[in-house]
């Protein structure tokens, strides 16, 4: 910039001088000074125009030279097609891997969520004792909404399941109840019809319903006249008021949210509900000008007011936390994606080192050409520029090829279909990705090209010219060797990371989650309020179904539960418990999941009953108040004692679903803890209640069977249809599916990391091989002389191996040390393996060392095949 300014000033000065002289000449010819000046200016012409034209010349010459350099570069590449092919392919692999991973990172982490004013949307979590991401109760939402200034809207949603009937096939659907303002927060406008209007989410309001595009197409044949018609949901008539846009998706930090198909308003006065029943997810839109931090501190203030005002809030020690929606959404996948992105950057560095090495080998031959050009008056800056142009050109050629590789790699990544990365489907090669790839191509061009360009442009002209075209070593072997060291150590870091991921994955395969999913078939049923209004009707249906299924060939045992382990499809229920008679204080109580459980459940999923018994059909609300706890709860409430026969205060609803009261129950069994939410963390303890004490609107049934899954699945369909024609069966699948799903993210990261590490290893091998063969070629003469004067062939081979192998060893050592320092960053992804796992480190150093030495060995062996007579004669 300043260079340009200086040139402009100089031009100005030059023109002023010129006019001055002409004026002087005119005066000498006898003109009066004033006239002389005018004549001079007239003769000069339009000064502004001249300046403009001059500036254009600068630009056009610059472009001309650029074009010259590009043509020259292309010619040089054509002259050495082998070099060009290897360099472009290497770059295409390195940049292409980056293109693919970046398009994932871009779609998931960088692009704003597809909602209007997405940046102002935030989740508001209710903290409940030690549970920091809890749902809110109805009154909590209403209080917060009326007191908050930071939020212009606060909406709530609760997801359950429902049954749509009256269409061709009854279908169990994921159903969301929302406040009226919920959908307008997330969608600009409807595809058809309207949103819910304010006030339509109150008790006594008409039952209305909004469909997602998917369900509208599948169940209603995309009928455009659907708005205004009624449809039967859970046995009641609802009027359809709208259809959501096709691209609408609920991207909330909870996979079951993404599957919602039907929205209805809360047909209830939220403020009148109980303060200690939290079930609503709150999302709010910040008022313009308010930050998340301000909203957070306001929410805290409101929470402290609420704690003072109502004893329920004080008891649960209510706090509120505000998190940007996007941040909250990507929370589970961010560490994995960031690590993968770091890995792919390492691959790019290896690529750059590799190409830099190639260029260095080649620059030996080009030093003479460059020196000649310098001697003929080319400026050093111009030569460096030409080299840089050539390298950036190479980078861009690689980048273009990288788009193809990136596209294929992205297709492959998408085909892995990792669970839980909802935004991944949006990953594509869009403008952002293209811009990223272009930037990377130019950047790599500069990175791998600068060192060789400078090393060429430097150097003593006379010396080089005296060498007169002989292929000579290019001064600095240490530069190449340090490139090898860095290539090897970068690959080493990647390999260690991958090794740790593989160890994590094998730990996941071996983990005992407390149940045995093999040979278990599961399915889900939901019981609409209208047709199953009493607890008896539900228990009777389930009893009949169990008996019918147990009679089928191959059935070993049949059971069921309100929430299957590792199934995030149905809402999780949890609450506080305490030993009967203990003072009601948070420190005396235990937070545990509670499950409504059918007889035969523990046998069916292969859990271990430690003491006591399972539930029986006789365990109903009228006769016994019983519970089964897991060893975690037993140990927390009655440490060191036998839990059987002890009394526990629980929240149950013997009078029907959702009518909670606190009652004492007697523990009749202790079961080994089941990991309900993740394979890698134990999670809360669990308390199991019989169906009659804690009825739920939906159940998952589990059948342990020796029959093939397909066969038994057909029995299930028949058995359910026989009992209730309108009862849809959903999620009919082997229980192993849930385990696979829980392993999916680790599998995804492991597979990608493995691919990247393999790529880096491959590139590093090419680099080592290339450098060693180059140095062997350079030293042919020396080797020939050594052999001619009687050196042992083995000695020669060992000498080459020693010299080329050293950087590999140094690279492995520095790589291991760096990896050791970096692995703590991976801690969130690892399970069942120490960050400094000696086995991984040992295996990686062996593999890398062996591969590296092999890459040296091949060219070293060829050195011993040198025929001294031929080499020496050719000199």
């Amino acid at each position, binding site marked *: 910039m300043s260079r340009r300014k200086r040139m402009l000033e100089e031009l100005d000065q030059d023109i002023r001088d010129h006019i001055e002289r002409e004026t002087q000449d005119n005066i000498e010819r006898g003109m009066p000074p004033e006239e002389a000046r005018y004549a001079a200016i007239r003769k000069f012409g339009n000064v502004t125009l001249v300046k403009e*034209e001059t500036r254009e010349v600068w630009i056009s010459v610059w472009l001309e030279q650029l074009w010259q350099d590009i043509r020259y570069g292309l010619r040089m590449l054509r002259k050495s097609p082998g070099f060009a092919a290897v360099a472009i392919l290497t770059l295409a692999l390195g940049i292409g891997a980056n293109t693919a991973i970046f398009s994932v990172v871009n779609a998931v982490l960088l692009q704003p969520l597809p909602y209007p004013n997405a940046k102002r949307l935030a989740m508001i979590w209710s903290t409940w004792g030690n549970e920091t991401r809890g749902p809110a109760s109805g009154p909590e939402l209403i209080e917060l909404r009326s007191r908050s200034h930071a939020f212009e809207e606060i909406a709530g949603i609760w997801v359950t399941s429902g049954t749509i009937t009256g269409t061709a096939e009854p279908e169990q659907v994921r159903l969301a109840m929302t406040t009226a303002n919920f959908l307008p927060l997330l969608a600009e406008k409807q595809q058809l019809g309207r949103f819910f209007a304010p006030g339509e989410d109150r008790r006594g309001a008409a039952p209305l319903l909004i469909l997602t595009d998917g369900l509208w197409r599948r169940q209603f044949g995309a009928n455009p006249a659907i708005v205004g018609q009624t449809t039967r949901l859970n046995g009641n008539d609802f009027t359809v008021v709208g259809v959501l846009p096709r691209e609408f998706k609920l991207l909330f930090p909870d996979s079951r949210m993404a599957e919602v198909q039907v929205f209805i308003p809360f047909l209830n006065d939220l403020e009148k509900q109980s303060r200690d029943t939290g079930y609503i997810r709150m999302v709010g839109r910040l008022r313009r000008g308010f930050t998340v931090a301000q909203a957070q501190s306001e929410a805290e203030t409101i929470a402290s007011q609420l704690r003072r005002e109502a004893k329920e809030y004080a008891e649960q020690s209510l706090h509120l936390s505000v998190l940007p929606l996007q941040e909250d959404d990507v929370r589970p996948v961010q560490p994995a994606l960031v690590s993968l992105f770091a890995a792919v950057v390492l691959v790019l560095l290896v690529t750059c080192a590799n190409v830099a090495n190639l260029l260095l080998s080649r620059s030996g031959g080009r030093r003479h050409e460059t020196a000649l050009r310098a001697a003929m008056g080319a400026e050093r800056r111009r030569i460096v520029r030409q080299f840089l142009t050539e390298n950036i050109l190479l980078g861009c050629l690689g980048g273009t090829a990288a788009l193809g590789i990136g596209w294929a790699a992205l297709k492959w990544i998408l085909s892995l279909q990792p669970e839980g990365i909802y935004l991944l489907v949006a990953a594509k090669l869009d403008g952002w990705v293209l811009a990223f790839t272009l930037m990377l191509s130019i950047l790599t061009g500069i990175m791998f090209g600068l060192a060789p360009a400078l090393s060429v442009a430097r150097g003593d002209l006379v010396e080089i010219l005296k060498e007169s075209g002989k292929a000579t070593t290019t001064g600095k072997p240490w530069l190449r060797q340090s490139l090898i060291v860095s290539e090897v150590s970068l690959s080493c870091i990647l390999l260690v990371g991958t090794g740790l991921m593989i160890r994590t994955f094998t730990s996941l395969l071996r983990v005992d989650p407390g149940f045995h999913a093999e040979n278990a078939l599961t399915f889900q049923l939901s019981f609409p309020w209208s047709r199953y209004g009493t607890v008896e009707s539900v228990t009777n249906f389930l009893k009949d179904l169990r008996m019918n299924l147990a009679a089928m060939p191959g059935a070993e045992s049949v059971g069921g539960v309100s929430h299957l382990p590792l199934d995030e499809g149905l809402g999780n229920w949890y609450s506080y418990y305490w030993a009967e008679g203990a003072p009601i204080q948070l420190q005396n109580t235990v937070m545990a999941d509670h499950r409504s459980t059918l007889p035969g459940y523990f046998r069916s999923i292969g859990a271990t009953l430690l003491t006591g018994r399972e539930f029986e059909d006789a365990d109903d609300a009228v006769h016994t108040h019983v519970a089964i706890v897991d060893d975690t709860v037993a140990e927390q409430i009655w440490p060191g004692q036998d839990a059987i026969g002890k009394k526990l205060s629980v929240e149950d609803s013997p009078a029907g679903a959702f009518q909670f009261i606190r009652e004492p129950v007697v523990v009749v069994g202790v079961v080994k803890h089941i990991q309900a939410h993740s394979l890698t963390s134990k999670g809360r303890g669990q308390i199991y209640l019989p169906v009659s004490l804690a009825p739920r609107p939906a159940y998952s049934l589990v059948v342990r069977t020796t029959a093939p899954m397909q066969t038994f699945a057909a029995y299930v369909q028949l058995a359910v249809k026989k009992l209730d024609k309108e009862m849809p069966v959903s999620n009919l699948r082997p229980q192993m599916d849930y385990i696979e799903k829980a392993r999916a993210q680790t599998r995804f990261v492991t597979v990608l990391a493995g691919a990247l590490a393999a790529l880096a290893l491959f590139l590093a091998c090419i680099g080592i091989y290339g450098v060693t063969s180059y140095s062997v070629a350079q030293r042919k003469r020396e080797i020939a002389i050594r052999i001619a004067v009687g050196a042992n062939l083995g000695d020669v081979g060992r000498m080459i191996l020693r010299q080329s192998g050293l950087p590999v060893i140094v690279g492995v050592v520095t790589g291991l040390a760096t990896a050791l320092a970096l692995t703590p960053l991976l801690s969130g992804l690892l399970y069942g393996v120490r960050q400094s796992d000696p086995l991984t480190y040992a295996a990686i150093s062996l593999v890398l060392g062996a591969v590296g030495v092999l890459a040296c060995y091949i060219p070293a062996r060829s050195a011993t095949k040198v025929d001294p007579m031929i080499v020496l004669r050719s000199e």
Partner: protein
Amino acid sequence: MTTKEEKERIELLQGTLDLLILRTLLLGPAHGHAIAKAIEFNSDDVLQVEQGSLYPALHRLIKRRWISSAEGTSENNRRAKFYRLTVKGRRQLTLETGKWDKLAGAIARILRPAKQGGKS
């Protein structure tokens, strides 16, 4: 004052100005004004350079490394920018002069075919 009739003056062809500048500088370094004067004078004022148009041409030559510029002092002890032919420029001049001669010869032959009886 030496002025010629307007119609006898010739507008310079694209690119020829560059050639003229190089030729002028062959005699030694000069500043912008001097170059313009020299071109006018050496062509008996037939070639009329709009003096301003000299500058884009000079800069083009600098950018191509055919000439270089340096600060110096002129005859009457004033500071001025002097332009000087480079090695590359000298080579270019030879090249361009050759090309020009060929072009001029060819055009001349087309416009004025050899007279009958003239030397062959």
